[in-house]
């Protein structure tokens, strides 16, 4: 069955392509005639929200994207950051939310595949992956099925491809009942003098198609991902792609081998909107036209139409511009790896995007305008109403601190994620120095004797909902803090902005507020955004997700032997809190999970304090004075201590005497810019004196000792009981 190119373009057809009447008028003005069916598909693919960033572009431009170490910021397949010695780290995070809800295994798998491809397209070998996953309420009928499918899909692809998954997040909230989030991060290593870009150069050069064959899967995927969901969602299943990690692994090896020969002029992976997006990108960036002959494209199915071939999102495919004299050498490499290699077109000087099929010209469009002239909106937005302040004195203290802490460590959102990450290969490549479960994943740089990279992914959606600006700041600050907690210097970040329908002013207000907050924090912490992705329309039947701007950051450890971990405290070590006493309970998990209410503003992030305290902790770690370190975030000091105790298997005796506020705020307050460190007893005075002279607030908490976590006469829980509560929720839930 072939869809003819000559079908009439009706208003209904235009609408079903996700194009608004004024957008269609823009197309008519641009090309001066009615588009062909294939051309309509191409416009729909290029101008949807997912590919064009039409609602967010105006605000994304305000983010800081430059820095001393930034080699490539947003606009390429991934960001590139210098890590000295001629090495660089290439990384990005991208969402695969809509497809993962429709078909969790393949949706998640191809999300991982897509982000890995973005990284190796630039010439980098992937060395680490993370996944930030958000699901609906545990008792929602679809949640278990989605968790099971997404986790298996993430593992199924990453494990087979051969990249260690070293971190991530898994959270539950009823607001994700109809729209889960799958945000996949990947990082790779390259040499700074061997980075590959998508800009085509040179006239009349062969455009080469590489990798897997083109099928009908994923046709219209990017357009689907730019719309809200309703009851008809099951009908969208055919728009989800199917992943093949084996082919991707072969494609990685073949691409890196080919790049080594000097044959590659430009390279672009086929991701969203496949052949269309990759070809337009290469041509438009290089100020060249592209002509494609679809009869040369390797296909998996018979009688595919031009429309289907141009919109297919079949995975594991690449487009390249190669040096003609290297063609045979290139072909031999791809044949060796069992992959398709076909010359499907050439670069031209007419700045047109021309598609030939069965000898007929089925599309002829201006290539620059396809990308550059995409609509851009300054959508109306309203600032979210701030919540009334909530002093800790107005929040009830727990009847029983032991019970409250056990409940928190065993709750759906704070319990151990072991069930999840034991399904991921966290060790492959032999360089994983810190695996999931700590503050950040750490991977050593194989080619260097001492260097390592730290990775963390963070956001606290309930904060962003309560106050998008502070929540945006906090997401950046927590990511930065987690990286500092290993002793690494945070270098740069990637953002994955997940929101509802931007056509609603209140949702647009969340997006604008969060971006402003992210920008402010990134500037204050010298933590530029070098790549990212926006996922909007995460709504079902008009109910939007919690605003979730995920921030994933990368840090550099010059010497991994001087690195801190969450669980490496020794018996007799002194516990010191860095930062102020806990006082803020608004929007805390103590309120949500113990008192069953959501109120109050999120904690404010004092970015100067964040920076000062983080730099202090990092310097102590690098001087070798810290035995263990953990940041204080959701759940406050109490949860931080419990997590350190569980990770080390050692008890703690803590005193909070001379308290400067209510005990439950000291325990569970989520004030920012704070850490718990342990130091050997003979260094405790020195470290406190150093903090004092650096102007860093601190408090001596107590000693690592025994088998219980004891705080004055308020709390006394056996570590083994904490561990049991912490480890049992997830397996029991999934059983």
């Amino acid at each position, binding site marked *: 069955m072939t869809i003819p190119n000559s079908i009439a373009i009706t208003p209904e057809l235009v609408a079903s392509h996700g194009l608004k009447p004024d957008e269609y008028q823009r197309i008519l003005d641009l090309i001066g005639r009615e588009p062909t069916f294939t051309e309509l598909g191409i416009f729909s693919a290029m101008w949807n929200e997912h590919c064009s960033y039409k609602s967010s572009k105006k605000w994304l431009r305000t983010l800081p994207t430059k820095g001393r170490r930034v080699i490539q910021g947003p606009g390429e397949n991934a960001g590139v950051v210098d890590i000295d010695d001629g090495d660089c780290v290439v990384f990005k995070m991208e969402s695969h939310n809509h497809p993962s809800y429709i078909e969790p295994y393949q949706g998640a798998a191809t999300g991982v595949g897509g982000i890995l491809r973005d990284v190796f397209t630039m010439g980098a070998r992937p060395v680490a992956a993370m996944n930030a996953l958000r699901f609906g309420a545990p008792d929602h009928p679809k949640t278990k099925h989605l968790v099971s499918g997404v986790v298996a899909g993430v593992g199924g692809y990453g494990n087979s491809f051969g990249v260690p998954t070293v971190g991530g997040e898994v959270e539950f909230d009823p607001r994700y009942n109809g729209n889960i989030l799958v945000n996949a991060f990947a990082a790779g290593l390259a040499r700074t003098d061997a980075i590959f870009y998508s800009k085509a150069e040179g006239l009349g050069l062969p455009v080469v198609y590489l990798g897997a064959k083109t099928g009908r899967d994923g046709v219209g995927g990017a357009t689907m991902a730019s719309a809200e969901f309703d009851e008809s969602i099951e009908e969208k299943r055919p728009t989800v792609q199917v992943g093949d990690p084996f082919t991707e*692994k072969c494609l990685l090896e073949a691409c890196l081998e080919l790049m080594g020969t000097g044959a590659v002029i430009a390279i672009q992976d086929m991701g969203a909107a496949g052949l269309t997006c990759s070809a337009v990108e290469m041509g438009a960036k290089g100020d060249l036209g592209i002509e494609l002959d679809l009869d040369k494209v390797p296909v998996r199915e018979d009688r595919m139409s031009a429309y289907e071939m141009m919109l297919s999102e079949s995975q594991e495919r690449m487009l390249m511009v190669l040096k003609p004299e290297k063609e045979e050498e290139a072909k031999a490499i791809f044949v060796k790896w069992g992959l398709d290699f076909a010359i499907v077109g050439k670069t031209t000087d007419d700045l047109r995007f021309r598609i030939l099929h069965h000898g007929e010209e089925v599309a002829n469009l201006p290539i620059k305008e396809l990308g550059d002239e995409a609509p851009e909106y300054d959508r109306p937005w309203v600032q979210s109403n701030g919540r009334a302040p909530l002093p800790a004195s107005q929040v009830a203290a727990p009847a029983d601190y032991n019970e409250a802490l056990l409940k928190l460590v065993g709750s759906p959102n704070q319990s151990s994620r072991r069930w999840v990450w034991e399904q991921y290969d*966290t060790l492959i490549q032999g360089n994983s120095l810190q695996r999931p479960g700590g503050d950040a994943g750490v991977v050593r740089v194989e080619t260097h004797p001492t260097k390592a990279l730290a990775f963390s992914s963070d956001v606290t959606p309930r904060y962003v909902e309560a106050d998008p600006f502070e929540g945006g700041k906090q997401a950046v600050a927590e990511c930065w803090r987690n990286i500092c907690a290993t002793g690494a210097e945070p270098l740069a970040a990637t953002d994955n902005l997940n929101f509802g329908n931007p056509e609603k002013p209140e949702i647009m207000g969340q997006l604008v507020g969060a971006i402003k907050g992210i920008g402010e924090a990134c500037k204050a912490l010298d933590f530029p955004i070098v790549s990212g992705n926006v996922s909007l329309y995460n709504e079902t039947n008009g109910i939007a997700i919690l605003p979730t701007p995920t921030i994933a950051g990368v840090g550099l450890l010059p010497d991994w032997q001087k690195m801190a971990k969450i669980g490496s405290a020794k018996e007799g070590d002194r516990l010191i809190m860095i930062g102020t006493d806990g006082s803020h309970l608004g929007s805390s998990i103590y309120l949500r999970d113990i008192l069953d209410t959501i109120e109050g503003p999120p904690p404010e992030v004092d970015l100067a304090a964040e920076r000062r305290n983080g730099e202090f902790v990092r310097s102590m770690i690098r001087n070798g004075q810290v035995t263990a370190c953990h940041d204080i975030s959701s759940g406050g000091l109490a949860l931080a201590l419990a997590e350190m105790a569980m990770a080390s298997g050692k008890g703690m005796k803590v005193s909070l005497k001379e308290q400067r506020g209510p005990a439950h705020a000291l325990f569970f307050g989520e004030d920012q810019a704070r850490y718990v460190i342990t130091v050997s007893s003979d260094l405790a005075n020195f470290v406190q004196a150093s903090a004092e002279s650096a102007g860093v607030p601190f408090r001596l908490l107590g000693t690592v000792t025994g088998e219980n976590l004891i705080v004055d006469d308020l709390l006394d829980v056996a570590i083994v009981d904490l561990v049991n509560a912490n480890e049992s929720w997830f397996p029991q839930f999934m059983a």
Partner: protein
Amino acid sequence: MKSAVVQLPGLNRDRDMIAALTKISGRAPITVWQTETEIPDVDLIVIPGGFSYGDYLRCGAIAARMPVMQAIKEKADQGVKVLGVCNGFQILVEAGMLPGALMRNSSLKFVCKEVKLEVVNAETDFTRAYEKGQVIRCPVAHHDGNYFVDSELLSSLEDNGQIVFRYAEGTNPNGSLSDIAGVMNRSGNVLGMMPHPENLIEAAHGGSDGRGIFASALDVVAATA
């Protein structure tokens, strides 16, 4: 001692294995591509882990039929040591070079974690660096490591000392019969094991318990890193 690492499309722990052999023996192994029909003179051939051909058929089934496997068989018949780890173990079983079968994990899920291994037979070319009954740490990372043989074969494996490693202290991660983690052939020169000793050989790995296997097979002292 010279070694070779076999490379097949979809294997992905080849780089880990090459790094381990290089660090322990002081010389890089030769790499052998799937289509090669002759293997140079080496003392140890290693088939590393991964997902050869995506494991889209039974794990290791396609790899077992590639030309290079015939060459490996010939070398094994001549007494050259062959080690298959994870997918390499599955390939050796599918090639008929080791007894038994590796089924899907009893959990039906991929599992990556550290387990304990008991060295059941320390008088082999691969385990001389250990003592009989010694319990070592070792990571696993697989989806299909559930070892099975019929009862008759099981007793003959036991009688002939062919069971080299067992999961110890209740750490069997996959439901393997009799906690079997590694078996060798009757002549003792072909060993297959699901765990990954190559990922526990140096301080950066948090220990070096896996070193002894390579040190034994390569006849170098099992120095702790």
